[in-house]
């Protein structure tokens, strides 16, 4: 297994180094996507399958698509990174010293850290939480308040983007590239199937709202690329889109308040009902996350 570890480490270092040091914006973004894929493999190696699923869909997929589209929208004068190219050799020595120093300090600190963990505590309360899979139980019940704020952060990001400018529709690709439309048509049932599978699996195995939302969001980006965008501009669907974007946060807040009414503490769910609450929040949060990732891709507010 040491060989696999070494290979993964070298691949991650190579892609990250090329992303940060080589000239060329497009090359840098492509290397970041490759880096995301390597990181997904590293998560699998470190026994974090939930993180690997989310990283493969978001880190390698959606972040790369966002960056590539943004680079394509930039004026030609902004697409070059060439002036950095000449400065690299002169900065090389101080950069190496800083990297070795900071890296060494971080590494020594990291290895000296005591690893306490909450494994036993979580195993003790897992039967009361309403989910059999520990990560889902933590996200949606035990530390639900963190996830609530995290979805609020995402909603704030959507609000910030919508207040900036009108949507920048992606270029209409379906006329020049007919294969893309066919691919989207073929893959969409599979995206929906994977989404439902992850949601269903989330309570007892790796999966859950975040990977499901990420997969559906990636499918949504594919839809936007093939020009299926008109519905967002229609008044009725635009209202529906707003409600769905807020659905995760609203349901989460409602659950927290219901917990306050039923048990007297914010987000204190009674154990016998926790399972139903978790499923409801999971579906709403996954839909909201998927639509938020999809609307990020427009860099603005869809309005006719």
């Amino acid at each position: 297994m040491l060989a696999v570890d070494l290979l993964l480490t070298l691949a991650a270092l190579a892609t990250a180094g090329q992303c940060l040091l080589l000239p060329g914006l497009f090359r840098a973004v492509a290397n970041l996507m490759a880096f995301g894929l390597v990181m997904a493999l590293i998560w699998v190696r470190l026994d974090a399958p939930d993180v690997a699923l989310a990283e493969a869909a978001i880190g390698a997929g959606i972040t790369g698509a966002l960056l590539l589209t943004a680079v394509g929208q930039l004026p030609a004068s902004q697409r070059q990174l060439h002036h950095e190219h000449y400065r690299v050799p002169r900065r090389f020595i101080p950069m190496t010293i800083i990297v070795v120093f900071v890296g060494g300090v971080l590494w020594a600190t990291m290895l000296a850290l005591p690893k306490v963990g909450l494994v036993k505590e979580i195993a003790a309360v897992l039967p009361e939480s309403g989910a059999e899979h520990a990560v889902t139980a933590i996200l949606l019940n035990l530390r639900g308040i963190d996830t609530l704020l995290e979805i609020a952060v995402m909603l704030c990001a959507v609000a910030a983007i919508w207040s900036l400018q009108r949507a920048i529709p992606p270029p209409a690709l379906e006329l020049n590239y007919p294969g893309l439309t066919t691919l989207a048509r073929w893959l969409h049932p599979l995206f929906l199937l994977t989404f439902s599978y992850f949601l269903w699996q989330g309570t007892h195995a790796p999966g859950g709202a975040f990977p499901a939302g990420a997969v559906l969001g990636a499918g949504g980006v594919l839809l936007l690329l093939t020009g299926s965008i008109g519905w967002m501009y229609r008044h009725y669907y635009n209202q529906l889109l707003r409600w769905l974007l807020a659905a995760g946060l609203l349901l989460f807040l409602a659950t927290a308040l219901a917990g306050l009414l039923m048990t007297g503490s914010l987000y204190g769910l009674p154990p016998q009902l926790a399972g139903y609450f978790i499923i409801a929040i999971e579906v709403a949060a996954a839909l909201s996350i998927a639509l938020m990732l999809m609307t990020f891709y427009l860099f603005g507010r869809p309005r006719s």
Partner: protein
Amino acid sequence: MMGDLLGIALILLSLPFFIASTVGLLRFPDVYARLHALTKADNVGLGLICLGLAVQADSVAVGLKIVLIWGLLLLASSTGATLISTSALRHGHPPRQRNDVDKHAGR
């Protein structure tokens, strides 16, 4: 036992295809030839690896899932290759002709 041996043999058999496609990616003269090398040889190599893993899988369901991965990858890589070559053609990179001077020879 037989399944394991067959699986290992299939995975070993995939290695020449990957080596061939990597050599093709590095040595072929233009985008289209490189895409050809990547999509053809890599798909066969990955198919052999998937078959080798599916033979060793514990249950039929797991084996079918592994084969499904191959199917999805075939779909994605063929569409991706079409997209890359169409966009290369549209942005003015005509395919190399038979009597063109090979500028990349020996590199």
